[in-house]
């Protein structure tokens, strides 16, 4: 897109950085964020509190941080990769002992801010894998020996997060990691075989049910049952999905109108400020709104992928595309869940759901993407 000569020789001037900044992406991020504030206002019943206002502050801070991160040279971030990865692992271990959270130990309360290490882990893993594959000789990247380190890098955090227990996030980490490996060019056969192995594993999990080998907890098994048939438990676990579909569907083509969503306003929709905020959006703005948001997200992903494709710096390219996959997984799983296409796994809608940890990490990731984009080699 921006072809200037030898941009990474020495320091690029500040003005140049401004020009190289991916403004379309930034604008879309801003739009999404604004949308999010609007929705939080609505689900609070027409009030900036208790969600819209804090979220707005966080967004402004995060957006500012994104710009700053974007302006800092990508190699600086690259140099932080290894300490960052190790740091996240340590935090994950720490959360097992000091952590708190509903039913699962996911957060560390630092008084000033609540940290969710698993969020940070996603980013640092992608960074680590990007670094690894930017160093590995091309002809070696598919050989089994060279596969061990990345797999280890992936499975370690996956396992730690899984035992929190947080099935959803651990799968996200797993998939993001594999995506980077795929992008790096690892032989495609590995993935095909891996897919079959994965299917086999899933069947084994299901078959292990009700035996002493049972792999998932009853709660998780129940979640899957209800996913496959929500009417099994319409007032319990199936309630979320049934209500979500009702609210969503009743939005129709143009929605009920801002603040007019009866299901959300009357409290029929649980978790309406977090996991199910998309439902409220769909209910109030109809198909126009929901499709609109989907298109915005899709554009953001496309922008990132295009930037990565053009980026000749391997680390930058892998980092950008890997983070784009992570971003995609966020909104895809959330929307699928809300529409009954996936089991309820508690994944927030990026930049819109209430929650500071996820949003800040996400804006930070966009910062990294901007940094990779701005500082890509020209020519």
């Amino acid at each position: 897109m921006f072809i200037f000569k030898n941009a990474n020789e020495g320091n690029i001037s500040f003005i140049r950085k401004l020009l190289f900044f991916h403004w379309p992406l930034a604008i879309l991020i801003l739009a999404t964020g604004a949308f999010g504030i609007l929705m939080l206002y609505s689900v609070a019943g027409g009030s900036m509190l208790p969600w819209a206002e804090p979220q707005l502050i966080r967004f402004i801070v995060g957006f500012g941080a994104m710009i700053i991160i974007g302006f800092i040279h990508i190699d600086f971030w690259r140099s932080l990769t290894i300490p960052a990865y190790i740091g996240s692992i340590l935090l994950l271990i720490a959360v097992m002992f000091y952590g708190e959270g509903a039913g699962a130990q996911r957060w560390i309360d630092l008084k000033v801010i609540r940290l969710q290490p698993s969020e940070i882990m996603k980013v640092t893993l992608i960074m680590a894998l990007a670094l690894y594959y930017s160093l590995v000789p091309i002809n070696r990247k598919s050989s089994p020996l060279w596969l061990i380190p990345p797999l280890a890098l992936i499975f370690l955090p996956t396992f730690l997060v899984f035992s929190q227990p947080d099935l959803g996030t651990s799968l996200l980490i797993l998939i993001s990691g594999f995506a980077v490996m795929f992008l790096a060019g690892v032989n495609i056969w590995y993935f095909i075989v891996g897919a079959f192995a994965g299917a086999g594993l899933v069947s084994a999990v299901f078959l292990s049910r009700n035996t002493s080998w049972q792999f998932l907890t009853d709660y998780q098994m129940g979640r899957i049952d209800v996913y496959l048939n929500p009417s099994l438990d319409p007032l319990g676990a199936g309630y979320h999905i049934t209500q979500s579909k009702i609210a969503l569907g009743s939005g129709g083509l143009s929605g009920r109108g801002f603040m007019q969503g009866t299901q959300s306003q009357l409290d029929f929709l649980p978790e309406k400020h977090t996991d199910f905020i998309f439902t409220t959006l769909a209910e109030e703005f109809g198909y126009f709104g929901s499709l609109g948001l989907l298109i915005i997200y899709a554009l953001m992903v496309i922008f990132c992928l295009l930037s990565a494709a053009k980026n000749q710096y391997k680390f930058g390219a892998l980092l950008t595309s890997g983070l784009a996959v992570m971003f995609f997984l966020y909104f895809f799983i959330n929307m699928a869940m809300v529409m009954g296409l996936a089991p309820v796994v508690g994944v927030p809608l990026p930049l819109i759901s209430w929650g500071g940890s996820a949003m800040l990490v996400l804006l930070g990731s966009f910062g990294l993407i901007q940094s990779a984009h701005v500082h890509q080699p020209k020519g």
Partner: protein
Amino acid sequence: MRKLFSEQNVEKVRKSVSRRIILLGLGKMTLIGILAWRMRKLQIEDSEKYRLQAEENRINMRLIPPERGLILDTRGKELAVNIGNYKLVITREETSNPKETLVKLSKLIDLDDKEIEKILSNISKISPFVPITIAEHLSWESFSKVVLNLPALPGISPEMGLTRYYKKPTSIAHVVGYVGPVSKKDLEKFDNPDPVLQIPKFQIGKTGVERELEETLRGKASLSKVEVNATGRIIRETERISGFSGATLQLTLDNELQEYAYQRLSGLCASSVLMEVNSGKIMSLSSVPTFDPNQFVLGISQKYWDSLLNNKLRPLSNKAISGAYPPASTLKMAVALSALETGILSKNDTFECPGHFDLGDQRFHCWKKKGGHGKMDLKQAIAQSCDVYFWEVARKVGIERIGNTAKNLGLGTKFDLPLSSITQGLMPTKSWKKKKFDQPWRVGDTLNAAVGQGFTLASPLQLAVMTSRIASGKAIEPQLIKSIDGINKIQKEFADLNYNKSSLEIIRKGMFSSVNNAKGTAYKSRIMDEETTMAGKTGTSQVRRISMIERETGVLKNEDLPWEKRDHAIFVAYAPFKNPKYAVSIIIEHGGSGAQAAAPIGRDILLNAFYYNRKSIS
């Protein structure tokens, strides 16, 4: 670090990465497409379905019970009304200390510690804005005491519902019936039960007019649609569909006459019916002993219920319509009429009564044992109730003809009245006996039937109808409803029975003789007033077999027998003779002689009707 970068083969790297990126990009776009498709399905194709469910979520229906229709007597006097049910409810969210409020309340009304505990435990289990009934059917005094003190009783609200009340409970209990809290059994009777029946303790008619005309009396509930949120809290009312209160029912009964009959019969186990001869309207219908219907309205106490069930005299049964007794001599008119109409008998025919009648080697004894009645014509036979005369007639006429005439006069028929358990009685026929006992009909059966014994059964209502039909010559049908919601029921025109005037004449004269001739069985009960002379027929219905031994040693008198073995006392009559207005029938269970026990009461009921009407006209 930078040198690492420059060592890479830039082009190859770029190509491999971009290929994968494109692949991944396409994959993601496909998935996004699936999302968009699913969105479309939910929001556009299935939008209606979800809109509907969204509505169902948020709209609740509340029923407001309708006011039940009043029941009045023929003069508009209130028999069954609705009175206020004063209730107190408590709502948790309106008080910070429900226990304190309840303790304060217990000083004003009857509320013990156990009840307070129960209420406190109930309100802690439900949503804070749902009210719980503390007490209902409070007296006005208690209710007003509490209302005055409301400011000191946070959380308490007064409410008023309606409950049924019977003003003259015992005399009308059997006709009006009663309501009670709806039960599962009640609901099973309906295919599509009205949702209002699901209101707990909804009062539904259980017996009598209250039950038979339940739909008319109930009205229709108002429906209020309210918007609720997920915890069930009402946000606002969105729609109200008005119902209507039940229709006011006016009966043909005259409460004054009903009261009189009830008093006149008190102490006995009996029933009576008083009808208007020409219109068929029932002026009074009484059965004693009776009960208090107000006890049933809120749900009857086990003790009271047991006492009613265990009472040998069956107070819950409406004997006037459900009681089936052998009509005894009151059937003789039907026998006579059937013989006259077929020409087998003419009004001047005579028979000799020696006190007994032989059929083969069976001897039937006339009630006048010593020497019998002697030579009798029809008029005398009716007046003196000679059995032998009628046995002679019956043998010639046969049961089938007798049965037909009896049916034409209303016996063996079930009438269409809004009352429960109306008996059809029984007029036996040859085929009936064959079917029931698998035995052929015998002449002896005919003889028994001729004097209203054997298999024949009739209720006081049927006897009253029969009397009306004889008096008027028309096929009178009994009526109980005068008007519904002020609109009078159209008076039915009754068809002529098409009996010969002369046949009916002689029978009527026989009945007149029975009361006013010195030899008539009911002479002692005659009415002196020329204007209201009565014509009637006594009956003494045997309930036991009289053995041969007893015949020889002397048949026991009723007074010497235990109550259950005594004969039923029966009397039917109409008055005035010249221009019949009223017909009455009365059966006293085990009352003994019809002439001695039943006739005086029948006369009094008739007299009272005249007296009361004369009074009200002037």
